[in-house]
């Protein structure tokens, strides 16, 4: 669909009052983590925003990210999708299938060349093009063809961002994230397994309102949502500072709601907005429910040892890897010693000649 009408026009045609629009903007501003004092500017920006064409590609994924998006509660995702963006291709949500669906993708690309957004969920297999195909087209070919005319690419979820579970050792399909393949387009990673629904819609809303990308961190994640660690924003942080830890899931510390660091919480090294935006319509987040953070928005979180071992222990690996490392260390040490002795001997042999 061509970009023609503005969001203000669309809402006006729907009979939405200005007051309703102000409320919509307050919820959107909050979702985008904009300071409340900037909300009036957001009203202006959103009113004049043109609906971007969005092409959503789903590759090696579990549909959890789309499930997460369709549970975004503020503003209603239906409103966001149908009124604020033109979702021209999403093979899970669209009615069309097969050749008709592919024709819709190609048409959206042609009509909005250079302006459309590509949203990707799932990783891309490089090992064998037959591992994952859509309408007979490999994921790699479809991605590279579709991003050609894209204004930006948004990778939704840890799979599209960093490869995710498919990329975990031994990575049988040779899975990678989008930024390993696309080098000439702006990329936003909205990582998480799945990402927080409000973060997905917040990023789309930012693009819609300001027609630009938000500030990103070194992993291409929007700083508004990934600028703080879970630990920094965790309400249990004060227990950590006091050295009050739960040692097991049913001890006194756990019952009192103390810090879960010793039970494997990856909050200190995980950057995401779970501690403030929360899940399930803002009800709670894993730590509030008594479970340590798994670190799902970080690269390779599947391969960082047990979810239930404290970070201070997991960095040394399991007993097996520790033993392997020790054997390897002895072997390397022995080899170095032999090399050093040989060099010393060679040096001594050379000395009389010089």
């Amino acid at each position, binding site marked *: 669909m061509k970009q023609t009408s503005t969001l203000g026009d669309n809402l006006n045609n729907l009979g939405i*009052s200005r007051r309703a629009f102000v*409320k919509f903007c307050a919820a959107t501003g909050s979702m985008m983590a904009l300071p409340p*004092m900037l909300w009036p500017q957001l009203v202006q920006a959103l009113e004049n925003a043109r609906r971007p064409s969005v092409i959503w590609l789903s590759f090696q994924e579990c549909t959890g990210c789309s499930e997460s998006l369709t549970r975004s*509660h503020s503003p209603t995702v239906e409103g966001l999708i149908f009124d604020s963006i033109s979702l021209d291709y999403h093979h899970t949500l669209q009615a069309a299938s097969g050749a008709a669906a592919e024709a819709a993708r190609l048409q959206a690309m042609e009509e909005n060349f250079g302006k459309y957004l590509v949203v990707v969920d799932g990783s891309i297999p490089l090992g064998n093009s037959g591992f994952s195909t859509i309408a007979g087209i490999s994921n790699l070919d479809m991605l590279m063809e579709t991003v050609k005319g894209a204004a930006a690419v948004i990778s939704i979820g840890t799979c599209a961002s960093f490869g995710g579970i498919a990329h975990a050792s031994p990575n049988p399909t040779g899975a990678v994230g989008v930024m390993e393949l696309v080098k000439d387009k702006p990329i936003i990673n909205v990582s998480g397994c799945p990402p927080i629904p409000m973060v997905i819609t917040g990023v789309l809303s930012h693009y819609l309102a300001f027609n630009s990308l938000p500030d990103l961190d070194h992993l291409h994640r929007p700083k508004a949502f990934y600028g703080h660690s879970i630990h920094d924003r965790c309400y*249990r942080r*004060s227990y950590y500072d006091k050295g009050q830890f739960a040692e097991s899931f049913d001890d006194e510390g756990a019952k009192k709601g103390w810090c879960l660091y010793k039970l494997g919480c990856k909050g200190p090294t995980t950057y995401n907005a779970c501690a403030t935006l929360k899940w399930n*319509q803002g009800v709670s987040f894993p730590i509030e429910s008594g479970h340590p953070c798994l670190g799902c928005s970080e690269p390779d979180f599947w391969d960082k040892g047990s979810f239930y071992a404290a970070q201070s222990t997991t960095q040394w690996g399991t007993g097996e890897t520790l033993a392997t490392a020790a054997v390897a260390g002895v072997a390397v040490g022995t080899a170095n010693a032999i090399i050093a002795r040989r060099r010393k001997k060679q040096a001594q042999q050379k000395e009389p000649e010089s």
Partner: protein
Amino acid sequence: MNLAQTIDVKFYSTPASGNVLPLLFEIRHGLARWLETGEQTVIDLGHIPLAPGEEELIEATLGKGEVYAQLKVLGSSVIIETTIPGAWLVTHYNNDDEIMGKYVEVTDIPSILKSQQADMQQGLEELDRHLTKVANLQ
């Protein structure tokens, strides 16, 4: 004014997030700033780490004052002036009665309560049309 007479002050010393008292101080500073300069303060409660029960503690501390308003627009919104005049608790719900946002606004009247110029213009035109129709009948 009856500010949280029922709240035992010992609740504030419970460690949890440690954000309840700073937030109450922020409201206090917001009030002082509004009285001095007329500048309003909006605190988005959705972006402040709070332990279970702390949001309720803040709401119980502020209490319910003289004004209660309910909007019916894109779902409902509830606007309550707390027992601290000028400190308003604004909660927006969507059509499914899920909370879209909760804010403390420190101002004389929250902007969402004011009639919007565009809506007033539309109302004027509608009233004009009606009056014209009535005049034509007479």
